[in-house]
């Protein structure tokens, strides 16, 4: 086919207008959310003392951190779905969850604690945390990648990694309501490890499925 013929054909298809990436990403995540919630409620469920736990600022901080990660991840994904975008000037968004966590650790250090630091860090749910967050995040990661496929990310591995971060953030938000370890030291260690795993999976998957 000659290029002029192709151009004519593309012009004839101009009436077809695709949905914005944000809409597709939102729809995909909304479709995956019930799957992730089913996994969460079937396997773990909300911790029984949640009503009292809510009065503990360190319990609440977990949600601030995980939601900040999820929201930064969504913003970065949408940004990176444009071909000319780079992380420059945007990567600081990821410092928000990290900063909240550092602030939490500092706050906890200043308060008297019943348990020694290492005990708080190791906690009692590390293994559950490391398996639950990646498992719950998988449907969300698939949805995020599907949404980003609708975009045009020119750095597919990076975009995939960000999709991993956002799905881990959402999954960790669910998981945080189950976990009885509220110390920011625990969160900084095990949530971060679980998130890194999902991020790596996202980068790997992204480099394959996000090329256009």
């Amino acid at each position: 086919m000659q290029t002029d013929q192709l151009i004519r054909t593309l012009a004839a298809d101009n009436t077809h207008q695709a949905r914005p990436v944000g809409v597709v990403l939102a729809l995909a995540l909304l479709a995956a959310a019930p799957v992730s919630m089913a996994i969460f409620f079937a396997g773990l469920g909300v911790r029984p003392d949640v009503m009292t736990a809510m009065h503990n600022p360190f319990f609440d901080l977990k949600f601030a951190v995980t939601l900040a990660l999820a929201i930064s991840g969504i913003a970065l994904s949408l940004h990176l779905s444009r071909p000319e975008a780079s992380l420059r000037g945007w990567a600081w968004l990821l410092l928000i969850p990290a900063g909240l966590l550092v602030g939490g650790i500092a706050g906890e250090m200043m308060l008297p604690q019943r348990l020694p630091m290492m005990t708080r860090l190791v906690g009692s749910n590390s293994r559950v945390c490391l398996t639950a967050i990646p498992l719950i995040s998988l449907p969300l990661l698939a949805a995020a990648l599907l949404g980003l496929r609708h975009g045009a990310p020119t750095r597919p591995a990076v975009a995939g990694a960000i999709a991993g971060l956002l799905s881990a953030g959402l999954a960790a938000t669910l998981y945080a309501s189950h976990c009885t370890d509220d110390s920011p030291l625990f969160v900084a260690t095990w949530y971060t490890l679980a998130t890194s795993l999902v991020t790596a999976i996202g980068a790997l998957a992204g480099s394959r499925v996000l090329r256009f």
Partner: protein
Amino acid sequence: MREREDEWTGLMRSAISGDSAAYHRLLKAVTPVLRAAARRGLARAGQPVDQSEDIVQDILLAVHLKRHTWDANAPFAPWLFAIARNKLIDALRRRGRRIFVNIDDFAEVIPSEPAAETAPAGEVAAQLQTLPARQREVLQSIAVEAASIKDTAAKFAMSEGAVRVALHRALASLTAKLREQ
């Protein structure tokens, strides 16, 4: 250069608000620039420059199918060159060479008309044969016979909507097949 790029941005804005003639003009206007950049990329990779037309068509398809990722408040050229660069790197990699393509390769380029030594593009045509019959017929009617959507609908006893759907699906799956090859 500046003036040219402002014109592109204006045309693309009209295009996304439904002006197909503006879209046609835009694609016509960017093609020589894309061709020159593709030839330069091929030359630098030590590949025959007469293969540029396949790359140009590949870029045009990507531009078309990803144009919803362009922000209408941003200039069009950086978006276009990012897509083109991505496709060019991909094409050179498929031909077995890794090469760094500078974004300036596009911005500074002098448009090149189809030269006599440019080989006709073969990849799109080859993938066309693998499409479902109806999609292929619709695409060929519009591309080769220059029939309108309306005439094509009449010819195949389809509704205009069905022709549009078939056309869009044909273009999308052509692009997917080119990517996978």
